[in-house]
């Protein structure tokens, strides 16, 4: 361990005399010792055996800020100090200040507006793509669409079925507990039937599809953007809208009502199981009651909403994927944005639909 000493001297002021190693390992103590000595300061490097750039920087700092005098430096140490002195260009460390809450809010609003505008543009481009495809139907990518059917639809059956079944049980159980207080537990069937067919079936399916497929669309297309596959497609003359976006849109639009119907079915089965076990309503009676209390319009409401939700999910997913540029981090950000925005838009649209169907009398 090196020893340092400081001694006052009549002619030279205070002398700082480090010995041994003046390196990053001792940077903390050396800088403290230098700071503690009053000016005028002389630094005697005669006893130093090792020095690195951090040590040299500490000495340089004392010379620069306090006009310290350095004596006894070997040519090597002097050279090292010269090099750090040459590199003395203060650099900004932290990112520039963004300008507070108001600026952030403003940036957010502008960003949201741009996204919405961009989404509208993308919607237009997709419609044009569809129009072009109708004029030349031979270019329709049948295989790609079928493959998407499998990925978006068939492979989601398990998880959506399980989720819906459990939700049916939960709604049935909550309804039964509350309605029993009025002796109206038979209305649990109305609750299960109507809420799942009209609302929860399509909504929960949409959320699951957004999480499963919307995110996958954004990630797949985003990765293809980064690896320049999309650019390669364009140069070969293949329209990315036609090859990437339209098959996903079709798959999502076709599969959403089918999955929603599946979800309604499983929720009703789940609720029926609960009614049978907890309320002693036999399955046959349950099915009969369901067919009586759930009007056909409820089914239409559910099945009309589903493809619209599917369209929104695929549109937002593909749009965010196409927006990816630059690095891999962006893929993650865009994927998250795709899921959040599509679920948000689905819920907004659901509210719009609720008002609409009420005003046309399908209550």
């Amino acid at each position: 361990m090196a020893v340092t000493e400081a001694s006052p001297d009549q002619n030279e002021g205070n002398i700082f005399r480090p010995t041994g190693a003046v390196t990053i390992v001792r940077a903390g103590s050396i800088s403290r010792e230098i700071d503690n000595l009053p000016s005028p300061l002389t630094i005697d490097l005669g006893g130093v055996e090792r020095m690195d750039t951090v040590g040299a920087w500490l000495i340089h700092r004392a010379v620069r800020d306090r006009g310290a005098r350095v004596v006894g430096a070997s040519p090597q140490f002097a050279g090292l100090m010269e090099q750090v002195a040459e590199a003395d260009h203060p650099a900004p460390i932290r990112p520039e200040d963004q300008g507070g809450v108001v600026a952030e809010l403003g940036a957010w609003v502008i960003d949201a507006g741009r996204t919405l505008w961009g989404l509208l543009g993308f919607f237009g481009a997709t419609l044009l793509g569809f129009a072009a495809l109708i004029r030349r139907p031979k270019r329709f990518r049948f295989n790609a669409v079928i493959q998407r059917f499998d990925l978006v639809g068939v492979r989601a059956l398990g998880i959506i079925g399980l989720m819906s079944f459990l939700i049916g049980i939960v709604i049935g159980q909550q309804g039964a507990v509350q309605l029993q207080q009025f002796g109206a537990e038979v209305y649990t069937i109305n609750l299960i039937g109507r809420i799942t067919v009209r609302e929860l079936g399509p909504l929960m399916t949409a959320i699951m599809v957004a999480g499963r497929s919307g995110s996958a669309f954004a990630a797949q297309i985003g990765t293809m953007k980064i690896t320049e596959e999309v650019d390669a497609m364009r140069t070969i003359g293949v329209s990315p809208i036609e090859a990437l976006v339209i098959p996903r849109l079709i798959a999502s639009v076709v599969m959403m009502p089918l999955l929603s119907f599946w979800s309604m079915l499983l929720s009703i089965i789940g609720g029926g199981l609960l009614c049978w076990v907890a309320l002693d309503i036999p399955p046959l009676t349950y099915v009969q009651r369901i067919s009586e209390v759930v009007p056909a319009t409820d089914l239409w409401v559910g099945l009309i909403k589903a493809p619209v939700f599917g369209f929104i999910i695929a549109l937002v997913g593909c749009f965010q994927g196409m927006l990816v540029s630059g690095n891999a981090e962006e893929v993650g950000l865009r994927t998250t944005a795709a899921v959040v925005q599509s679920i948000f838009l689905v819920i907004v649209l659901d509210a719009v639909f609720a008002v609409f169907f009420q005003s046309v009398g399908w209550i």
Partner: protein
Amino acid sequence: MPAVATLARNHAEEPIIRVRGLKNAFGDQVVHENLDLDVRRGEILGVVGGSGTGKSVLMRSIIGLQTPVEGEIEVLGENMIGRSEDEAKNIRRRWGILFQNGALFSTLTVAENVEVPIREYFPVIQGDLLDEIASYKISMSGLPAEAGNKYPSELSGGMRKRAGLARALALDPELLFLDEPTAGLDPIGAQGFDELILSLREKLDLTVFLITHDLDTLYAICDRVAVIADKKVVAVDTIDNLLKLDHPWIQEYFNGPRGRAAAAA
């Protein structure tokens, strides 16, 4: 201790990296078998080999990111295999690594990237002093001061490599690992980087372990070149001496049109 300007260099003879009988394998695929390599203190050693010969795997084994199947690895006189995390940390402090694409932390600015190793190993260094150290490291790596508060994504490829180098130099290492430092740089940028490494070696007394494909870099800055072929290091020598060897890959590599062009430059 990060000995940079050492007055007495008494162990100049012993290798700073010593690899013996190294075997690396992924499943059935053997990458290295019975590989030996010495890196001498103070030299710039270039490591070359065809694609897939395991240059990066060799570097990853030496720095402890890849556990070899068998063999011994000593770095700075310390055995590296089977060390506990704490012991390994003390050795890691003494080397710096520049990964192929810089491997900068994307959520931090360049200067904050440089500060990360210092904060990690020397928490007593804080405030102004820390910022000043980061600044001169950035400047020494040939970056303009304005690059300090930029994010890695805002930098060009060449600047990103320099920023990665600034972070690798943060703790004043004795040993520097560079993985294809000039790959993806334009010839002017690559030449600038070569000169930077040479001048830093002079200034900071570094030993450099350099993986490269760049023949110009090999001729310009390497003291010795290690050739990896047939799962081992087939030769380590100056380029002049390597040229005298009768190994097909070496002959093709250095005597191909590109090799001759680089030699003439």
